[in-house]
């Protein structure tokens, strides 16, 4: 009831006189709804529907009361005020328009259901197709993108691009992973990937062409795909297979490294400060910035995407730790530099090794200069050197000509 009268608009009046009760009775009898009647001094104030002021005045005249309008209230009156506040009303409209405008852009793009496929890969492809944060929602052709995704990614078996509000979600299902079959049919040779001396050769398929102790050069065929079928003395013919096997060889590698005698070291004073900044797409807005001069080492602690409920905003809150530091120039002795170099070279050599490799020997030669030490290491290692190489058509033709 009160809400209805609020929407219709109401008038606040004060009734004064000897028989204000009679006035109220008469008004009620004539169908005027009165509420919030409160005694106020000699008279009483009350609220009545806005349209009933004529009846109230007639009643007051008959009962000898005086009524006085105190004010108007309710929705029509509230809206009526905007006639004077045009800028305010314009702002309200502008806000609504802004809200509509901002909600007609894509703000976030999410990928769901990818396991093997990289999210970045899909997102960048969608970006090329016109689906990325910041684009006009109506320009996004979801059906086209769905089809293009299916065409371009063989691993996707099902995909749906959906836009809900300002979020675009790419839901996809991947195909069952293909089992990598070892191709035994296509003719291919095993060739050397580096120069070296063969230590061991095991051929699973194909004809081994080298023996332990042989010196091979990069590109030499180690296990050939040619198979000679037939007993000796009888008619023989050649067949081709996919060669397979393991060849271990001793190979040498040269590494050089330099180490200056003078170096810079970073010293921390122990002072730490937090830095907060707001990231909008690529731009960074440093809001809370610690003051203090000198050098700082900055470490990003976390980047939290901001959201309003389920609605993800394209904003990120970045928290950094700044550590006060000082750069000091230092000098090291030749001996120190040498031991450091040796360590570095050993590490480098180990990084070169494959899972099967082994370092046999490292020989390091140092050269001393005025401001630096230079090291040259010769590394001897046992390493697998076989590499698959497809037998090209050309070779086959050559062979055919030869026969």
């Amino acid at each position: 009831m009160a809400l209805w009268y609020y929407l219709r608009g109401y008038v606040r009046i004060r009734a004064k006189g000897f028989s204000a009760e009679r006035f109220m009775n008469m008004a009620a009898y004539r169908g005027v709804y009165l509420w919030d009647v409160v005694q106020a001094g000699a008279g009483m104030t009350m609220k009545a529907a806005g349209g009933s002021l004529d009846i109230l005045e007639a009643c007051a005249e008959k009962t000898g009361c005086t009524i006085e309008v105190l004010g108007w209230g309710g929705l029509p009156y509230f809206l009526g005020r905007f006639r004077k506040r045009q800028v305010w009303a314009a702002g309200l409209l502008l806000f609504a328009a802004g809200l509509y405008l901002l909600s007609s852009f894509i703000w976030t793009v999410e990928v769901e259901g990818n396991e093997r496929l990289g999210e970045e890969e899909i997102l960048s492809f969608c970006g090329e197709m016109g689906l990325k944060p910041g684009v006009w929602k109506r320009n996004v052709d979801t059906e086209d993108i769905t089809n293009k995704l299916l065409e371009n990614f063989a691993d996707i078996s099902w995909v749906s691009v959906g836009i809900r509000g300002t979020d675009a979600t790419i839901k996809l299902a991947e195909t069952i992973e293909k089992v990598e079959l070892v191709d035994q049919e296509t003719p291919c040779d095993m060739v050397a990937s580096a120069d070296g001396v063969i230590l061991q050769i095991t051929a699973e398929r194909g004809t081994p062409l080298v023996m332990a102790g042989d010196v091979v050069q990069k590109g030499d065929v180690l296990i050939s795909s040619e198979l000679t079928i037939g007993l000796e003395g009888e008619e023989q013919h050649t067949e081709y297979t996919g060669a397979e096997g393991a060849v271990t060889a001793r190979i040498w590698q040269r590494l050089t490294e330099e180490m200056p005698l003078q170096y810079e070291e970073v010293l921390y004073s122990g002072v730490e400060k937090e830095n907060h900044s707001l990231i909008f797409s690529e731009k960074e807005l440093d809001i809370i910035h610690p003051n203090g001069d000198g050098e700082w080492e900055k470490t990003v602690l976390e980047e939290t995407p901001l959201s309003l409920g389920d609605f993800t905003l394209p904003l990120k809150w970045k928290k950094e730790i700044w550590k006060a530091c000082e750069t000091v120039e230092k000098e090291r002795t030749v001996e120190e530099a040498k031991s450091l170099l040796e360590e570095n070279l050993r590490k480098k050599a180990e990084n070169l090794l494959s899972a099967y490799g082994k370092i046999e020997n490292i020989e390091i030669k140092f050269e001393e200069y005025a401001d630096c030490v230079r090291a040259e290491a010769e590394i001897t290692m046992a390493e697998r050197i076989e590499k698959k190489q497809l037998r090209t058509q050309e070779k086959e033709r050559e062979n055919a000509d030869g026969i």
Partner: protein
Amino acid sequence: MGFRKNMTEALELPKEIMLNLPLISFIGREEVSIENYKGILEYGEETVRVSTATGILRLTGSGLCIKQLSAECLVVTGKVEKMEFLQ
């Protein structure tokens, strides 16, 4: 009147309609609604007198205020201390 009352009682009809009696309901002691009243005789913060078919009803209390007033129903709020029928 006697016949009407007997019949209403026998048929269990709502008395406030058949006999034009006031229906008074209290919500705690802060709100009283009086339906089927005849008119307000006096209104003040301490006393409200209402004329009904069974006589004059007087409400005494403090901070009394008429929350609603229409031809059928009267709702008084405030701190009600006493309700009595005069005459």
